[in-house]
């Protein structure tokens, strides 16, 4: 069928099965917005209030569903506003397709109005990007973009479409096939390596599974659960991996790393074998590399060869999709004649239980002020631990990770890699759009929420009934904590002055605002927030918390995993 580039785009997105398009119009995408009006049947467009939020929302949709998020923004400032969102998705390997308008091809390079080199600006923060110069190549480029975004190690892909290409005509048919000679995602881990790995696992005396976001991205949670339970090994998960293995299972020793549990970090440090699965030995996890797990051999399963032996040298690398590799490991385990040293494993567990007995997440909740930890625990209780929870970045993020244990994957939406303040609310919107009947919570701080607060307006327009839990400590708390520990309490610029009245602010946006400042009423008030009463309303809960509270345990910069500060 003959149609314009703009129409081809809309038809392609519908044929690809895209449900939601998050965007914001402008001069260089007007033909696309027009085609959206005339041609779209099932595709719903959500008009955000800032392009950064469009990308985070598409990202939250992708994290919660596993499907790619799709974004549409204009050239120049539209594209640059999207950059933080794209980088956030890139650092966490989230599948996104971001369509940007561009000035007409004849004007590229002439510093035209709202021209920026979008392909150049986004190059280091995308899996790949395209400038479409010929309308005949538009459909096949879109196909490649979705293929690249969703296969192998996922990531964001940007397609820059000049305005004249949007207006030019071509015939459209949905491309059924895609082939790229330079891109062949790995579909299978090496059988020999997997066998060697299983043998090493069975001969270990102090093993630990260390798993990350790759397990969730690779939809391998079921396989991970089966393998872990079969082996009976302790498992620790990264900030990005939470939920892939149920936190309530006794085999789970909690999150590891800078604010990980005592038992998780000591289990890692004292282990003789680390089985790393879909995790990338990030500096927030390893602490000082020179002191990292001195006695451990390492098996590393990852889809991206470049993640293997990048920070820490490994003994058995296995490149492949986590799901396939774990399935194969289970098969090998089933057949092997080798058996585990159960006595050694029992000793290992009794050691781990001793560490667990320190109860490192305890806190004093007797005071007159609400402890942020208590607030998160109360949210967990009110929601039965079943909510989709996004967070922003700061102390509240760590409290959320520590005190809202997840039993399912894709429930915890969090900017782990880039650490982007402003991520929380739009990410929650994406999840709420995907799951209108589920409870979606955004745990945020009074600093972070102000970085995308304008989206309260979008939430009203589209009936997104997110529950915002603002742990209001009047400080850029994580900054204040570092200043307290490492800069002799010089609290330079970390106090949040002139805060708005969040209750009134929420109300002026047409939502419900509730303030909680008494520990005695905390649980009851939250129970009401999550009751039927507010099922279809966005509620902004401003919880006034203890200003001086810090996140513990903590591994200071330069220290090893065994050098934690406990309370």
């Amino acid at each position, binding site marked *: 069928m003959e149609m314009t580039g703009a129409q081809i785009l809309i038809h392609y997105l519908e044929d690809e099965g895209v449900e939601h398009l998050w965007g914001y119009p402008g001069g260089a995408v007007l033909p696309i917005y027009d085609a959206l009006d005339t041609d779209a049947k099932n595709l719903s467009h959500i008009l955000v209030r800032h392009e950064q939020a469009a990308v985070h929302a598409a990202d939250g949709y992708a994290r919660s569903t596993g499907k790619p998020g799709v974004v549409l923004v204009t050239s120049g400032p539209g594209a640059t506003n999207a950059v933080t969102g794209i980088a956030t998705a890139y650092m966490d390997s989230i599948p996104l397709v971001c369509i940007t308008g561009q000035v007409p091809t004849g004007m590229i390079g002439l510093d035209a109005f709202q021209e920026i080199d979008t392909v150049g600006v986004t*190059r*280091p923060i995308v899996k790949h990007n395209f400038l479409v110069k010929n309308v005949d190549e538009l459909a096949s480029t879109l196909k490649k973009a979705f293929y690249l975004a969703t296969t192998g190690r996922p990531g964001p892909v940007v397609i820059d479409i000049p305005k004249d290409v949007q207006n030019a005509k071509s015939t459209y048919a949905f491309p059924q096939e895609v082939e*790229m000679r330079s891109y062949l995602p790995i579909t299978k881990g090496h059988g020999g390596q997997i066998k060697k790995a299983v043998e090493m696992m069975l001969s270990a005396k102090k093993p630990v599974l260390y798993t990350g976001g790759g397990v969730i991205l690779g939809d391998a949670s079921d396989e991970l659960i089966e393998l872990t339970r079969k082996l009976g090994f302790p498992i620790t998960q990264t900030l990005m991996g939470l939920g892939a293995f149920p936190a309530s299972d006794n085999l789970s020793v909690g999150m590891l790393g800078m604010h990980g549990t005592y038992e998780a970090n000591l289990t890692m440090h004292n282990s003789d074998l680390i089985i790393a699965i879909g995790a990338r030995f990030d500096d927030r996890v390893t602490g000082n590399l020179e002191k990292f797990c001195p006695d451990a051999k390492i098996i590393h399963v990852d889809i991206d060869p470049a993640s293997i*032996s990048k920070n820490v040298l490994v003994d058995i690398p296995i490149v492949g999709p986590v799901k396939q590799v774990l399935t194969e490991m289970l098969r090998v385990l089933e057949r092997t004649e080798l058996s585990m040293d159960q006595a050694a494993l029992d000793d290992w567990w009794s050691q781990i239980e001793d560490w667990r007995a320190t109860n490192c997440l305890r806190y004093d909740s007797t005071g007159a002020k609400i402890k942020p930890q208590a607030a998160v625990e109360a949210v967990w209780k009110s929601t039965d631990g079943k909510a989709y929870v996004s967070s922003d970045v700061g102390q509240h993020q760590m409290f959320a990770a520590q005190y809202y244990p997840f039993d399912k994957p894709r429930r915890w939406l969090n900017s782990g890699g880039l650490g982007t303040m402003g991520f929380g609310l739009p990410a929650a919107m994406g999840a709420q759009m995907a799951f209108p009947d589920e409870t979606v919570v955004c745990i945020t701080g009074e600093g972070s929420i102000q970085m995308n607060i304008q989206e309260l307006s979008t939430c009203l327009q589209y009936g997104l009934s997110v529950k915002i839990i603002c742990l209001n400590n009047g400080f850029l708390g994580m900054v204040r904590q570092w200043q307290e520990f490492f800069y002799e309490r010089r609290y330079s610029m970390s106090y949040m002055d002139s805060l708005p009245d969040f209750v009134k602010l929420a109300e002026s946006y047409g939502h419900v605002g509730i303030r909680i400042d008494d520990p005695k009423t905390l649980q009851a008030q939250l129970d009401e927030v999550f009751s039927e009463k507010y099922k279809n309303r966005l509620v902004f809960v401003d919880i006034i918390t203890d200003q001086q509270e810090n996140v513990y345990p903590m591994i200071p910069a330069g220290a090893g995993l065994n050098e934690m500060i406990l309370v």
Partner: protein
Amino acid sequence: MKHIISMLIENESGALSRVSGLFSARGYNIHALTVAPTEDDSLSRLTLVTSGTSQEVEQIVKHLNRLIDVVKVLDLTEGLHIERELMLIKLSTTGDTRDEYKRLVDIFRGDIVDVTATTYTVQMVGKSAKLDAFIDVIDPGLILETVRSGTVGVMRGEKCLQI
């Protein structure tokens, strides 16, 4: 150690900047880089010289492979290979130095490809180390201009970098 990394990349605008951008973003160094089309219109051949421990270079190769526009990568230094670089060097030559430099150029198997009353322009091909050696024997004050192509290379024998 020095490594010569040779690759086939898509002959598309932007492909080169993806490669060079990777090196600057990850703090890897590029001693030399050269790129030109091949007999296949859709491909360019890019050769670059970098240095690092074998672990670092392995990481570089992995990251290069991750780039969508990079079709194939080979570290030539891993096996027997032939490497060549072309240099044009313009020397200020008057009086007695003219004979001396003519002799030196012969010893290094270079050619004088342009002559004026006061200059020689010398063309020389060889391993980079040989070109370095030639430069070392010339009085630096007499070198007017040096231009080097960067190293290119192929594997010895039947092994080829092809798709």
